């Protein structure tokens, strides 16, 4: 059937789907203040926000990789009671409204929070700091990574790892020298998703980390506030964000291509 054109009953909804997604983006482009765009895009405040966004989302990605890959490995490679519970737990941030996630983070890591109080006692405060923003974004991005990597690990043929073990490599060495390289495409795809999600994060960040230009005001926050008094700037910022996203997705597609 490949090569043959798709049957209408499938083609029509597919086209509708694309249209449904394209139209709003087209709207942004049409509405864009093209003449004022250069000025708007070079607004230092915006660029600061962009820089911060890139920093935070990268930080969130790094954290997600550092925490999520091992977790995915544990979920895929070891057996222990309550595994389903853990898996569900890790995925909850996916469905929790970001704002609620932010509140939850405050209750945990805030000055008066479960862990936050002791931390504050030793002089460590996370809310209102860039670190806090990174945490908030990690909270929402982590599930994507775990999801993708565990999937890749699950479908990975075990015998390479087994042979490596018989060759004298301990579990850790096996993980680093065999498992990771073999699931690289899966990790890359998951990373791209996680990074993108972190880049677009708004609710959790603003609730947990607040909104201070240059410190915790990421691009999405800047967009939201700009909407209040300067819609043009908001649209411009959105386009900027879109451009960045598009780049991410191209990368994402690449890794897909690899996987296919």
């Amino acid at each position, binding site marked *: 059937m490949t090569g043959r054109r798709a049957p209408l009953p499938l083609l029509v909804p597919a086209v509708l789907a694309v249209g449904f997604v394209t139209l709003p983006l087209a709207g942004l482009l049409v509405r864009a203040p093209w003449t004022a765009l250069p000025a708007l895009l070079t607004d230092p405040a915006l660029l600061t926000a962009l820089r911060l966004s890139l920093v935070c989302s990268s930080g969130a990605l790094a954290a997600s990789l550092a925490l999520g890959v091992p977790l995915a490995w544990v979920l895929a490679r070891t057996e222990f009671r309550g595994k389903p519970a853990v898996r569900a737990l890790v995925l909850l941030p996916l469905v929790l409204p970001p704002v609620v996630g932010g509140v939850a983070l405050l209750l945990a890591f805030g000055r008066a929070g479960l862990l936050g109080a002791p931390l504050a006692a030793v002089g460590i405060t996370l809310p209102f700091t860039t670190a806090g923003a990174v945490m908030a974004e990690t909270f929402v991005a982590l599930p994507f990574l775990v999801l993708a990597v565990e999937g890749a690990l699950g479908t990975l043929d075990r015998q390479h790892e087994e042979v490596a073990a018989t*060759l004298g490599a301990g579990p850790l060495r096996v993980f680093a020298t065999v498992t990771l390289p073999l699931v690289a495409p899966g990790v890359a795809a998951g990373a791209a998703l996680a990074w993108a999600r972190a880049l677009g994060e708004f609710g959790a960040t603003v609730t947990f980390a607040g909104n201070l230009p240059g410190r915790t005001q990421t691009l999405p926050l800047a967009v939201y506030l700009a909407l209040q008094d300067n819609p043009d700037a908001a649209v411009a910022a959105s386009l900027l964000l879109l451009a960045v996203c598009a780049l991410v997705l191209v990368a994402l597609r690449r890794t897909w291509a690899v996987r296919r």
Partner: protein
Amino acid sequence: MSSWHAPGEPATGTRVAADTSPPVLPPVLRATLRTAYLDLHLDLAGGERVALVGPNGAGKTTVLRVLAGLGTALPGTRVVLDGTDVTAAPPPARRVGFVPHTAALFPHLTALGNVTYGLRSRGAGRRSAAAAGWDWLDRLGVAEVADRRAPELSAGQAQRVALARALAPRPRLLLLDEPLGALDAQTRTEVRRLLRVHLAAFDGACLLVTHDPVEAVTLADRIVVLEAGRVVQDGVPDEVTRRPRSRWVARLLGWNAWLGTTTREGLAVHGGHVLVAADPLPAGQPAIATVRPAAVAVHVGHPEGSPRNTWNGVVDEVTASGSRWRVHVAATPPVVAEVTPAAVRELALTEGRPVWVSVKATEVRVTPV
């Protein structure tokens, strides 16, 4: 059978090794596997090469995995390597080389990278590991592809690299699971030759799983026949091929084989028919009667004359084997005859055709089991 190998008795390995290879070495491997599925004891002497053969699902791969310490540790197993009990030790802590059915080379590494992996894991420096790696690739005649990634290697090259990879860390016990299974006839020959050379040079013990009798005969100095997790025969190749103690081995050799009880004139096959043998055994003991298919004559009518054994049945299947075709006859007992394609056509030997078969008593060999 397994009582035959009760840990108390002297190790089969050393015993058998005695009447083939000159020096009697201390056992490198002493393993007892008594699990839900397996029930066997294995002793391998240094330098001894043992072929583990048996039907699908006999447990061959499982045995190798237990010895290598792979998978979840099975209760009821005990593995002693060079005198130290490694039953609880994880794979890296055992000096075992393992080549799975598929070469399973690391696809993201070059041939050299694959061979040096074990050395590096065991702490060798980059330079010395590389040197040793080159050396091994060279010995196995694949030095020229050292820099190719695994997926770019031909099946034959891959299999050689896999061997080099397993041998490089100088394991005490080498486990090969159908090492030539994946190769086509041509490459298989070359690799087998290489394998023989290096196994001869190998000072550790080697356990080799195979489905190919030629491989077993030409590579091993002892053959262990496994069926449903139990050892049914264990001896030097000559003995096993000349007097197969199990129907499966006989089948593997392409022979007719029937289990039964010896009578004064031959063997009462389980299921009824009595086969007349030229030189029968003392009556009343369990035994197996084997007949070469080429020694079975097929007739359309009732055959006249000398052959002492004649019975009839229906052609069940015709298969090609070399220049002869094998005619499987459904009868009691069922029998396989080897005839020429011409005969198949002339006698119209197709499934469902009623025929008579005859076997000369001199062709019936009776072996105790």
